[in-house]
């Protein structure tokens, strides 16, 4: 490929963008909207996953020791718990700490429990966290059979429901992003295809004049890449500004609901969107040309 050809390809691509002004803008508009929708879904999914992670990591197993157990046996039990498969961390909570926690969870109503201090019936316990939420019930069963363990408790139904819900959210997220990707690819490719459709006549003539398929397609490839990259950049810019505005507002308004403020994954999404735009633009512009080349 000589320099002459290279300049020709770029000149063609740019002048075609200019000559097909309306079509170019329409395509960019569609690219921007598609990528915005895809990008927003991805951000929603990331936040949902992050929330699910938080919820899951707070699921613990309470292990209550037999009442007549000695101090040293209690310590020993704690050490053994740490060795159970799937256990992440073990924390000792004394009877009085348990009451404190309980009161805390009561919030404003805590004085209702004032009477309890004198005859605290809450037992000592170990709070066991598992490596993964799906292991909770298995680990609990194992622990129940251990010596010195009176009772094991974890939010049976609730944990399972939570797990279901978070795994649902994850799956739904993957499905959502997948569907949105397909939709975005379809929308962008269709739009570009249509804009090329209206140039069928030109493409055929070029072929009749002895142009190779490659020669005809390269400018379309470049043109699509330019459109796609431009659309990608604009949508990422909008998404970036919009999302950071939202994060600022939400994170300061709700201390209990924190959006993912930045980080690797979000940067990947932004870069990914621009790349996706460029790729669909380039490929989507040069593939549909093919059908008009068969003359």
């Amino acid at each position, binding site marked *: 490929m*000589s320099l*002459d*050809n290279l*300049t*020709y390809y770029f000149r063609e691509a740019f002048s*075609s963008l200019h*000559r*097909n002004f309306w079509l170019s803008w329409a395509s960019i508009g569609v690219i921007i909207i598609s990528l915005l929708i895809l990008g927003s879904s991805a951000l929603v999914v990331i936040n949902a996953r992050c929330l699910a992670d938080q919820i899951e990591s707070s699921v613990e197993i309470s292990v209550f020791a037999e009442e007549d157990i000695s101090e040293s046996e209690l310590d020993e039990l704690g050490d053994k718990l740490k060795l159970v498969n799937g256990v992440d961390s073990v924390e000792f909570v004394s009877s009085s700490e348990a009451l404190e926690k309980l009161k805390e969870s009561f919030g404003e109503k805590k004085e209702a429990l004032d009477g309890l201090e004198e005859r605290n019936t809450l037992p000592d316990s170990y709070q066991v966290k598992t490596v993964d939420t799906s292991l909770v019930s298995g680990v609990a069963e194992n622990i129940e059979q251990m010596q010195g363990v009176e009772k094991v408790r974890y939010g049976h139904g609730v944990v399972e429901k939570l797990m279901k819900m978070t795994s649902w959210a994850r799956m739904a997220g993957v499905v959502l992003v997948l569907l949105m990707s397909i939709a975005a690819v379809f929308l962008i490719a269709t739009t570009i295809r249509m804009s090329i459709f209206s140039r069928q*006549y*030109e493409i055929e*003539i*070029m*072929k*009749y*004049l*002895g*142009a*190779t*398929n490659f*020669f005809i397609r390269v400018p379309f490839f470049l043109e699509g890449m330019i459109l796609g990259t431009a659309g990608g950049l604009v949508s990422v810019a909008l998404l970036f500004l919009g999302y950071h505005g939202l994060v600022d507002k939400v994170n300061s308004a709700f201390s209990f609901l924190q959006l993912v403020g930045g980080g690797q994954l979000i940067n990947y999404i932004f870069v990914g969107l621009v790349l996706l735009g460029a790729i669909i633009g380039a490929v989507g512009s040069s593939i549909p040309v093919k059908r008009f080349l068969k*003359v």
Partner: protein
Amino acid sequence: MIQMYNVSKIFDNGVKAVNDVTLHIPKGDFLFLVGPSGAGKSTLSKLIFREELATRGKVLFNKKNVARYKGKEVPLLRRNIGMVFQDFRLLPKKNVFDNVGFTLQVTGKGRREIKKSVPAVLKMVGLENKSEMFPKQLSGGEQQRACIARAIVNRPPLIIADEPTGNLDPVTSRDIMSLLLDINRRGTTVIVATHAWDIVNSMRQRVVALSAGQVVRDEEKGAYDRCR
């Protein structure tokens, strides 16, 4: 240069546009293709150009069956043929200069060469003042001449002109025909499908007459029809 053996072309809708044509066109020939409207002149040209493929029979270009040109080779075949299309086929979004320069562009010619050759050819067909204009802004005859300029600019070994003077006045028509004859004298094979009986009669070149897809007459130094 071109050999056709028992070539027939039957279109999808059953129309037999070319019917069992056998024809030899040696290198350096100047040939008029004549015949009533719908006789099959354009279809015959399209068979050589590989715009259409023969339903039956063989079309050889430089001893190679044009049906054998596949994919990437088709452009190479077409670059050897300067075609003046009956329906012009100018690129609507390129101006006259770029339209004519396009045939040079596709063979990878540099800008310098294009800037030298194109104006010279435009001058030959009398469009030197129209190089910045777009096809839509040209008169019918000007479009036709742009099309002729495009066909000759890269000096192909074969020129096929399908009704190249249908939109031209008699004076310009004669100029164009002399131009084609001139190019022919320098060794280029030229095929002209035309209805311009006056020019055919005055030029006394080989005439192949088609009727309903069949060759009904093939004469050296012929005339448009027998009666004149």
